[in-house]
């Protein structure tokens, strides 16, 4: 207990002072947390404060952000060629930087990262591992990570996971994410190692193979993309599998829009109470967010600053307006190839100033991610259709066409929505149009053959990883194959 107290103090001092955290110390804290939960069944009070948040007082939160920004900008000015130039060009005095002064510094775009990746690498850090964005929304960007970062994030992830009862020593986590998402898969494995949780890195294999593994491999946690979850649910239904065939207690998804229809179906099929929808993004690791029970997206503000900027003006967005999410991970949580004011182009709607009453009310929130800014459909100055609206509506069709495959464009002030035939089979175009109208979408439908479905819209489940040897037949539920 005394040693643990000293470890917590060391961690807190590093967080407050902005020095690099000792990752060995964090790893030992994970061990301490495991022993604590084994003894008491739960962590003690204020466990969340140990992880650096949330900060309830807005003034305190502002001061925390100011210190984080200045610390991060000072380091970038000294070690990052890209930001040294940018900060010099904008005459930024890093020691006086605050939230208001940030507006003078242009946001960083994915194009910047793709065109000049070397300029983002800090000169004082040795590279360890590179990870690339999956490229489903454009050209992939490559991010270099240091050994410190990989150890830090996995330790923080394991500590948070153990404290929140998301990782237990008797769990097995099955990871159905693209093997090319090296940071995500390495971090999943490393966090599991620290939390003494089993980890099965399967990749985006065939859904039947993943289901076999879920059914017979004792997996209790599934981590994947919404689109792949959709394929798993469809395959499970086809095979007649139900909650009794799985030992899952938790399913987490991220990286794509998760529709309510799919979430409900996944809960029913896999036997879990809810699907945890997590926001994270390779470029802005380790800043993350999660969805509360009232469908707000709450960002973790202990590791970075989150700005919501107006899509047109680039100024802080007004309550109720659509905004792009701009994120600055703080030093010392990011040190090899940091970004500053990175424009994710993920669109949210700012909450209209209402008082939050959800279980995460002490953390600022916005709406869920509504899609990428470049995929918005503008029908008029104030009439914007988001990808989430389309996905939610399509995945709510009685035909359950999961994951949603569509192409949408504006023609003559109306939405032209292209769907594969299977999406409306046995339902009909008229009923489908009525369905979309009820969802607030006045659409013209264009139907294409099912073999064109994947070309309409790529999803992460398309990052399929074939194997030479496949099971001859599904191991579980084979008798139900239709």
């Amino acid at each position, binding site marked *: 207990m005394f040693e643990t107290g000293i470890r917590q103090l060391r961690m807190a001092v590093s967080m407050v002072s902005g020095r690099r955290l000792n990752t060995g110390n964090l790893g030992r804290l994970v061990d301490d947390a495991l*022993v604590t939960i084994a003894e*008491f069944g739960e*962590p003690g*009070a204020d466990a969340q*404060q140990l992880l650096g948040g949330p900060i309830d007082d807005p003034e305190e939160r502002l001061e925390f952000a100011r210190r984080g920004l200045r610390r991060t900008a000072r380091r970038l000015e000294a070690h990052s060629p890209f930001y040294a130039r940018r900060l010099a060009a904008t005459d930024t005095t890093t020691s006086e930087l605050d939230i208001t002064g940030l507006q003078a510094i242009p946001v960083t775009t994915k194009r910047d990262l793709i065109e000049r990746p070397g300029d983002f690498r800090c000169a004082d850090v040795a590279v360890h591992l590179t990870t690339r964005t999956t490229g489903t929304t454009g050209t992939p960007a490559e991010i270099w990570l240091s050994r410190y970062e990989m150890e830090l994030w996995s330790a923080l992830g394991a500590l948070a996971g153990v*404290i929140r009862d998301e990782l237990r020593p008797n769990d097995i986590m099955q990871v159905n994410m693209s093997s090319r998402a090296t940071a995500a898969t390495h971090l999943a494995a490393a966090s599991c190692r620290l939390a003494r949780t089993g980890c099965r890195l399967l990749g985006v294999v065939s859904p039947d193979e993943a289901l076999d593994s879920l059914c017979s491999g004792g997996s209790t946690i599934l981590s994947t993309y919404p689109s792949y979850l959709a394929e798993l649910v469809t395959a499970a239904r086809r095979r007649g599998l139900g909650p009794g065939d799985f030992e899952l207690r938790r399913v987490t998804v991220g990286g794509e829009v998760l529709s309510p229809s799919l979430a409900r179906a996944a809960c029913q099929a896999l036997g879990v109470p809810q699907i945890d929808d997590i926001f994270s993004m390779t470029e802005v*690791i380790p800043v993350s967010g999660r969805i509360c029970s009232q469908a707000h997206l709450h960002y973790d503000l202990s590791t970075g600053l989150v700005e919501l900027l107006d899509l047109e003006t680039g100024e802080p967005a007004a309550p109720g307006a659509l905004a792009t999410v701009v994120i600055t991970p703080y030093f010392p949580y990011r040190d090899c190839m940091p970004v500053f004011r990175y424009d994710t182009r993920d669109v949210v709607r700012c909450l209209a100033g209402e008082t939050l009453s959800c279980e*995460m009310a002490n953390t600022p929130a916005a709406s869920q991610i509504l899609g990428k800014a470049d995929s918005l459909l503008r029908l008029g100055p104030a009439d914007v259709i988001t990808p989430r609206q389309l996905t939610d509506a399509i995945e709510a069709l009685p035909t359950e066409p999961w994951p949603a495959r569509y192409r949408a464009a504006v023609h003559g002030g109306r939405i032209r929505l292209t769907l594969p035939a299977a999406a409306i089979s046995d339902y009909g175009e008229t009923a489908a149009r009525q369905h979309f109208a009820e969802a607030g979408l006045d659409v013209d439908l264009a139907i294409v053959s099912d073999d064109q479905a994947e070309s309409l819209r790529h999803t992460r489940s398309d990052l399929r990883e074939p194997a030479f040897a496949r099971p001859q037949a599904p191991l579980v539920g084979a008798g139900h194959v239709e």
Partner: protein
Amino acid sequence: MSSEFAIPLLQQSFIEFGVTLTASVTVATGALYYLRRVRMERPPIGTFNGRDIVIVMVLIITLPFLYAVMPSWLITCFLVATFAASLSIGYRQVVGSGPVWLGIGVLVGANIWESHTMMGSVAGWQLWWAELDVLVLLGAIAVANLYVQGGMRLQHVAWFGLALAVYDLAASLGINVTAVLVEKFIGAPLDPTFGMRFNVNNYGIGIGDLLFYALFVTASYKAFGWAAARLAFVVMLVFGAAAPALAPLAFTLIDFRNDILIPSQVFFAPAAFLCYLWMKRRYGRERTMAEFWASADSGAIQAPVPQPEPAPEPASA
């Protein structure tokens, strides 16, 4: 040997037995009651373990030497801080923050005042002892629960006791540090001793001994339930209260000041250790705190569990 004392040794021994019996029964039942009724706050993560025993032992061994060289006012300051910390941790959630600090102020202030003004008569001494006894008992009950509810197991208690016994033997009969401390503390503010004065003699038992008795009984109860607690209670009465108090009838334990100093743990700790070994064989694995709270043995009010909030976690690309 009794001819050397103003009061016969037999009478002294039985008075001492009465004092230790009162103290040990009160502290053990109080600690058990507290364990059953109050769920203490604890840090986010951390469990009492074997290394903590080593740290506590180092403190126990070091502090007497520091006390011996520290000026009285500094010792008083240290004791005020120690009592205030233990009482506030133990009773803040029972009676509330304001009342607990008021109570600490009254008890500590009164003891300091009495130490300077009321030591001229037997009645004054008795008032001083009575008021100090309340402080000592409350402190021992709080700290015993802090340790046991912090995850200290009966196994830890048993080994801790053996280490204490070795220290007690050496400090009392070897290097005489206990005698020096008794002389320095008696009548001084916040003497960490439960005691009472009868006639010209003071009779007492140290807070460390009482703490250990409370630890042994509560840890036995937490680990194995009522049957184990009853056995631990009997062992405490026989080897913690009776045997040390009556030992001077059989052994010469007179120190250089003509006081009788009895290293209680030399009697109690080996018996407690053997008792632990028997319980382990009889009952098997010790219960965790979670298992204890979930059992019918715990009447403690369940503390609200904080809901987790967003925090750093592995990214998904």
